């Protein structure tokens, strides 16, 4: 297995600060180079290369002769390219980017839309059969990861007794101490971040708390911003006290290294996101893509995902007495891969929802 460690590890493009760009943010190639490879697997994903590389390496080690190319892109970018390729548009819409063999995106609504538009092909295997119904739709889109939406707080600046355990606590906290928290609560800007919109829309479906929550955000002058990494850094440094609806995988990875960061899985309910993988209908190397999905769902693959904090096990965290992750795992609400995800993508619905958001939360962009 070590012979595939002739890995060409090349981050060709540096990380763009803004994900709105059309080009890939980063690219990594594993396995033999183009001349020596028997076949190539082209993957596009929204997951950071740093986080995802171990899994790619694990797959490369069991796939001799396979050249693996992973393009890290923004979710909208992934969707636009796939939709264009599906409609039979030019395969070279973005330079070298042809139709990919595998798409893994955290924008599960967009992935569901691709499947709904008939842009994916089915894959049925013993591994996919182990998936629960909510993370497998039509055997065409699969939830590979298990990442909670969490609240991140600064452990030094928020006394333990004040740490909100649920959304109710957060609302009460913002109401009771508007001064202390004014301008120091952050959440995703749902107009810019697909993930932020996804979480916020899911929140609006889950409970009536949502109206009071965004009202409280508005009153406390919550900051709508972008990008997990920067927000979590700001929390660690004390610029923000609490960040709401952060992706647990990033937060946990950071909290493991940084003791200033505390994480709460809200006890009223915790949204669970599973990054959605699908194989485009016109994939050139669907076989390899299917093998990658099976690998990611197999016990070794799941161990690697767990290690990368892409699969968060509340049971194991509780057993280990983790101080990082706090919260009750009783109310986990997985976001199902189903046509219901299409509602948020409807342009009227989106417009109405964003208007509602804007009217409550004062927009402040902190870059």
């Amino acid at each position, binding site marked *: 297995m070590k012979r595939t460690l002739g890995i060409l590890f090349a981050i060709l493009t540096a990380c763009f600060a803004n994900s709105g760009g059309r080009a890939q943010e980063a690219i990594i190639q594993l396995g033999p180079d183009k001349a020596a490879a028997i076949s190539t697997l082209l993957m596009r994903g929204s997951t950071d290369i740093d986080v995802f590389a171990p899994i790619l390496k694990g797959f490369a080690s069991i796939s001799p002769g396979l050249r693996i190319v992973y393009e890290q892109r923004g979710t909208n970018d992934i969707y636009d390219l796939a939709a264009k390729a599906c409609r039979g548009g030019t395969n070279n819409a973005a330079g070298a980017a042809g139709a990919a063999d595998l798409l893994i995106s955290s924008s599960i609504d967009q992935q569901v839309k691709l499947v709904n*538009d008939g842009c994916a092909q089915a894959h049925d295997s013993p591994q996919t059969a182990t998936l629960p119904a909510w993370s497998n739709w039509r055997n065409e889109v699969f939830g590979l990861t298990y990442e909670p939406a969490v609240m991140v707080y600064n452990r030094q600046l928020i006394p333990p007794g004040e740490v909100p355990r649920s959304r109710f606590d957060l609302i009460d906290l913002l109401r009771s101490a508007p001064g202390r928290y004014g301008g120091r609560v952050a959440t995703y800007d749902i107009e810019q971040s697909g993930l932020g919109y996804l979480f916020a829309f899911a929140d609006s479906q889950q409970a009536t708390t949502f109206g009071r929550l965004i009202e409280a955000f508005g009153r406390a002058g919550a900051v709508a911003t972008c990008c997990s990494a920067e927000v979590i850094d700001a929390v660690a440094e004390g610029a923000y006290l609490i960040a709401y609806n952060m992706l647990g995988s990033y937060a946990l990875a950071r909290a493991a290294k940084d003791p200033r960061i505390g994480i709460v899985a809200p006890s009223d309910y915790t949204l669970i996101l599973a990054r959605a993988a699908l194989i485009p209908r016109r994939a050139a190397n669907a076989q390899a893509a299917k093998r990658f999905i099976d690998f990611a769902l197999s016990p070794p693959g799941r161990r690697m995902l767990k290690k990368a904090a892409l699969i968060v096990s509340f049971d194991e965290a509780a057993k280990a007495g983790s101080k990082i992750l706090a919260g009750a795992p009783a109310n986990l609400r997985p976001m199902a891969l189903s*046509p219901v995800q299409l*509602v948020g993508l409807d342009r009227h619905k989106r417009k109405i929802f964003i208007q509602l958001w804007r009217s409550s939360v004062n927009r402040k962009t902190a870059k």
Partner: protein
Amino acid sequence: MTDWTRSIATRLAAAIALILIGGGIAVTWAALEYGRRAAEEAYDRLLAGAAFQISRSVAVLDNEMVVDLPVSAFELLALAPEDRVVYRVDDDAGTTITGDGRVPVAKKRTDGAAYYTAAFGGEGMRFVSLRRQFAERAYVGGVRIIVGHTLRARSALAWDIARNALLIVVAAGVILVGLTVFAVRSALRPLRRIEGALLARDPKDLSPLDVNAPLEVKAMVAAIDRFMARLARRVTGMQNLIADASHQLRTPVSALRAQAELAQDETDPDRLRAIIERVHDRAVGLSRLTDQLLNQALVIHRSDAADQSLIDLRTVAMRVSEETDHDLASTEADLRLDLPEDPVLVQADALSLTEATKNLVNNALRYGTPPVSLSVRQIGKACGTADIAVADHGPGIPEAEWPDSGRRFARSAGADKVSAGLGLAIVNAVAEAHGGRLEFARLDNGAFSAALRLPFVSEDPS
């Protein structure tokens, strides 16, 4: 004929298989059709429910149509979990407000909900189209809501329903086959019992079978019993014949032998002639006896075996008259015929009847007093009887002996020793074989009459 056509079980199995296959095909078709319709109805309602929910979410806000797509509509559609979903909301101008503008519209325009199937996105889809009317300051008119989904859940449900129906049919078929096997076995069991009863029976035992049999098999048992009764009669007849023959023939043959032995030692020509005279007498008697015995055997045989046909008693009388004239040409006795003008029809065996009548005539000619008459008479009209009667003016048989005179060897006082006493027994046997009887009567003019009385058959075939 091949072997399998002989087995009731195989034929029944083939018939049932045929019924089951035919019924199976019909039921399969019906089940598939029923399943398809049930699934279509169920999922059409789902579609319509979602479309109504979406239609309620359309509003006119700030001079603009706004669709606040309800999540519940999609949760409803997600009840068909494997199906892709499309929707489209249009205004009256045909502009798509939201949704996918490529979704096909219904061909026919209806006020209520219209359902249609069309291919979209490379897959067959079912759509519902419905309208909602608006009368607002900003917009007067309607919106059309189209919701569609793919057919996976429908097919699955249709197949599920059909499969359950088919399972029931298959189970019913298996039960039916089992019941049939059981029914055939139990139906054929009496035959086995009859077979056993027949095999276990003493070869000489011709009594009726004592077997418990169902109604359908009883007919066969009755037939077997009838057959055995006939066999028993014939065996009895045969045994009687043998007994008669041995009994009747022994004495005359011994007498002949004694006379012949006398003749061997006799030298006197006169006495020798007297002996020869006696030998001749004995031989004549023996000859008549043999005739009668054989006649009786023949008549008894025919009465059971011969086919009876429709014959005219007058023909019988005429034939008897001819043959008697021929036989008794030497005697001066006269036979008078007394026949009606119309035919007198009976169902009978002509030969037995002729033989029996001849016996009566011979008796009258031999023992009676002339004139002897042979008459045919019909008594009653439709369901009456017919007589063929012989009358003479002699003393006849004394009235006390009438009941017994039909028995064998019931020799009347008037009969001579050359008579074997079989004549009337033959007549009696023939009468019984034809469902009639032998009747004696003393007529008003003093004549003695012996009649063979048979059931009369109306000439009119109706």
